[in-house]
C-alpha cells in the first residue's frame, strides 16, 4: 500500500510536488554552479601560479629581501664613445632578474631539509638588447630631446644617457637557465614541447635552447635555427608551448650556460622545491627558513595571496557572496519545502484522520508523509542537478575571460624572482598579467553533495509534515474542513 499510495499521491498532486521540488532544485542548482565556478576559479589560479612555477613545485626559495638602496649593483648601458658619426651601435645587457642570487650550494642545502623531496635551482635572466644611433655634437638639455631606453637607469639621479637626438631601439626578453638534469621540476614543466625535443640530461653546458612558441612566432625562430644571446650562439632544439598561454621565459637554456652569460658562476635566482608530502608544506617552509638564513620561502598559497585583477575579484565573490547566497537560498528552500509540506498535511487533515480512524497506526501515516516529502526532495535533487549541470555547462561554454595580475601589489617581497628592485625592467617581469578563461568543472563530490542536500531537504520537509501528521487525531476524520 505504501508505494501505491505514494505513487498515486505524486501522480495526482503533481503540481504540489513540483512546487516543493523546484524550490529545492533552485537551491541545489545554485550550490552546484557556485561550487563548480569556484573550483574553476581555483583551477584558473593554479594555472596562473603554474605559469610562474611549473608543475609539481610546492614552494620556491629566493634570497631574502634586503633593504632597498643597500649596495645594489645597478647597471647601466655603456656605449663606447666611438665617435663615428651616425654609426649604429648594439649592446646586449644580461641581467639577473631581481639582481639577487643564491649560491648553488643553497640548492643542495635546501634539498637536504626534512620533508623536501627534490630541490632544483634555476637562474632567471633578462636580456636587454639596445640598438642605437648617435648623432654627434648634439648635447641637449635634459628636458628636451628624444627618448632613451626606458629601462635600465630610470629614476636614479645622474649618469643616465641622455643623448639628445639619439634614436634607440630597446628590446628585452627573458632567459631561464634550467637544470637539465632535473626536468621534472621548474618553470619549463608548465609548457609542453610542441616541436623538437627538450634538453638531454647530458647537455649541462651545451649551447642549445628551447624557445617559447609565442616568442618563436614573434621572432621567426624554429627548431634548427640559432639564436644569439649576448654574443653566444645557441641552436634551437625545441619549441615549448605554455599550458596557460603565458610562459615563464622566452628562452630556456642550460643553467650553466646562463650562469656564464650573466657572469654569475654557481649562482641561482630561485630554488624550486617539491615537498615529500603536500600536507606538510608549511612545516617544510619554516624548516627551510629557520635552517637556511637569508632566504625567503614562497609557497603557492603565499603566491595566491598576491594574485589580483578580475580573477581574484571574481574568486573572492564566488567564495563569499556565492557561498552565502547559496546557503541562504538553500535554507529558504528547505524552509519553504517544510512549510509547503506541512500545509499540504493541513489540507489533508480529514484524509489522515480517516486513515487513523480506520486503524492505521500513527507511524504508518507519518511514514507516508515523510515518504512523499523524500520523493519530492529527490525530484528536486534531480531537477537541481540537471539545472546546475546546465548552468555549469553554460559558464564553461561562454568561458568568460578573467585577468589575473600577479604580484603587482605589495612591493616585491615573496615573489619568485622578486627581491628589492629600485625600478627598472626586473620589476615588470616579476609582475605579470594573465588572461584565463573561466570554466566550471562539476566534480563527482559536488554531485554527491547535491544528492545529500536533496535527501536532507526531503527529510526536513518530511520532518515538518510528519510531525504535523503525527499529531492528528482519529476524530479529525469528522472535522469540517475544505
Amino acid at each position, binding site marked *: 500500500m505504501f508505494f501505491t499510495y505514494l505513487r498515486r499521491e505524486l501522480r*495526482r498532486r503533481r503540481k504540489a510536488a513540483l512546487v516543493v521540488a523546484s524550490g529545492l532544485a533552485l537551491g541545489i542548482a545554485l550550490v552546484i554552479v557556485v561550487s563548480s565556478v569556484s573550483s574553476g576559479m581555483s583551477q584558473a589560479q593554479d594555472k596562473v601560479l603554474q605559469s610562474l612555477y611549473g608543475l609539481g613545485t610546492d614552494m620556491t626559495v629566493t634570497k631574502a629581501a634586503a633593504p632597498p638602496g643597500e649596495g645594489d649593483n645597478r647597471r647601466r648601458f655603456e656605449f663606447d664613445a666611438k665617435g663615428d658619426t651616425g654609426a649604429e651601435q648594439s649592446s646586449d645587457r644580461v641581467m639577473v632578474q631581481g639582481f639577487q642570487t643564491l649560491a648553488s650550494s643553497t640548492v643542495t642545502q635546501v634539498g637536504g631539509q626534512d620533508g623536501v623531496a627534490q630541490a632544483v635551482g634555476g637562474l632567471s635572466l633578462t636580456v636587454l638588447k639596445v640598438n642605437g644611433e648617435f648623432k654627434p655634437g648634439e648635447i641637449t638639455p635634459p628636458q628636451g630631446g628624444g627618448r632613451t631606453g626606458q629601462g635600465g637607469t630610470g629614476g636614479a639621479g645622474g649618469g643616465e644617457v641622455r643623448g639628445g637626438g639619439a634614436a634607440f631601439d630597446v628590446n628585452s626578453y627573458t632567459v631561464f637557465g634550467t637544470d637539465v638534469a632535473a626536468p621534472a621540476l621548474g618553470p619549463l614543466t608548465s609548457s609542453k614541447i610542441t616541436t623538437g625535443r627538450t634538453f638531454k640530461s647530458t647537455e649541462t653546458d651545451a649551447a642549445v635552447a628551447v624557445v617559447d612558441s609565442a616568442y618563436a612566432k614573434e621572432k621567426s625562430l624554429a627548431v634548427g635555427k640559432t639564436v644569439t644571446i649576448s654574443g653566444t650562439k645557441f641552436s634551437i632544439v625545441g619549441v615549448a608551448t605554455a599550458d596557460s598561454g603565458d610562459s615563464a621565459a622566452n628562452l630556456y637554456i642550460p643553467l650553466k650556460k646562463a650562469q656564464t652569460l650573466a657572469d654569475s658562476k654557481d649562482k641561482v635566482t630561485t630554488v624550486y622545491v617539491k615537498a615529500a608530502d603536500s600536507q606538510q608544506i608549511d612545516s617544510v617552509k619554516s624548516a627551510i627558513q629557520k635552517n637556511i638564513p637569508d632566504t625567503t620561502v614562497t609557497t603557492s598559497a603565499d603566491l595566491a595571496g598576491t594574485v589580483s585583477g578580475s580573477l581574484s575579484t571574481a574568486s573572492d565573490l564566488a567564495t563569499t557572496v556565492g557561498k552565502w547566497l547559496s546557503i541562504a537560498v538553500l535554507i529558504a528552500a528547505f524552509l519553504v519545502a517544510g512549510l509547503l509540506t506541512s500545509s499540504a498535511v493541513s489540507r489533508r487533515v*480529514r484524509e489522515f484522520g*480517516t486513515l487513523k*480512524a*480506520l*486503524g492505521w497506526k500513527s507511524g504508518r501515516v507519518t511514514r507516508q508523509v515523510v515518504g512523499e516529502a523524500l520523493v519530492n526532495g529527490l525530484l528536486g535533487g534531480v531537477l537541481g542537478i540537471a539545472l546546475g549541470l546546465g548552468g555549469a555547462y553554460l559558464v564553461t561554454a561562454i568561458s568568460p575571460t578573467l585577468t589575473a595580475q600577479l604580484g603587482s601589489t605589495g612591493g616585491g617581497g615573496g615573489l619568485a624572482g622578486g627581491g628589492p628592485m629600485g625600478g627598472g625592467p626586473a620589476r615588470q617581469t616579476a609582475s605579470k598579467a594573465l588572461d584565463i578563461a573561466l570554466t566550471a568543472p562539476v566534480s563527482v563530490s559536488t554531485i554527491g553533495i547535491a544528492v545529500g542536500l536533496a535527501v536532507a531537504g526531503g527529510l526536513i520537509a518530511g520532518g515538518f509534515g510528519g510531525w504535523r501528521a503525527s499529531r492528528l*487525531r482519529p*476524530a479529525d476524520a*469528522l472535522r469540517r474542513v475544505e
Partner: protein
Amino acid sequence: MYQLRGVTKRYSRGKKTVDALAGVDLTIEDGGRLVIQGPTGGGKSTLLQMLGGLDRPTRGSVEFDGVDLAQLPEARLTKVRAESIGFVFQSFNLIPTLTAQENVETALVPLGLKGAARRERAAEALGSVGLGERLGHVPGELSGGQQQRVAIARALVKRPKVLLADEPTGNLDESMRDEIMELLEGLWKEHGLTFIMVTHDSSIARRAPRLATIRKGRVTITENAAA
C-alpha cells in the same frame, strides 16, 4: 456490546467550555440497531466518536465487549478500531487519489493483509455494494451515492462487530438516500452486526425500533415496539 456510564465530554475553546456530552448512560445490545437523532450541536457526532474509540471521554467509561475504551492505551485502541469498528461518514471521507478498490484496501492494511488477498477481498466488498464494475475509478469519477457505497464497502470489508454511521445520507439527494438506506439495512440483516446511525431524517427515525434523542448532551431513549 456497549455499556456507557456517566460519559461526559467537555470541549474548551479558549475560556468557553461546552459539555458536548453531559453524563450519558447507555446500553446497546449485541446485534442491536440504534438510531440517534437530535438538534444540531446536540452531541450526536461526539457520542459516535466515543463509541468508535476515535476520542476519549473527559469523564465516565465506555465499555466495549468488556473493556473500557476510555482507559485503553492508544495502541490497543487503534487495534480495536482496525478490527472491530466500521465507520461511514457524512462526507464519505475517501482518499481522493486512490481508486475505489484501493480505498477499500486501506481498511485491510492494519490487519496485515497483503497483496492479492487484500485486493480480492476489496473487490468482493465492492461487488456486494453493487460497484463490481467500478474498481479502478477514483472518487472524483463516481457519483455521491457511489462514493458512499465505496465508503460502506470500506467499513464492512474488515467484517467489524459494529457499524457506526454519522449521517450517511446527509450529503445525498433523495433518490440516493433511499438507495443507501436500503443497502445499509440489508447489510445489517445479512451480517448480524450492531448498527448505530446518526440521522436527521425523521422518517427513518420514526421507523427505528430504538431511538436515542440527544439534546444538550443528554440522551433520552424511545423504544418503538411497533417498528
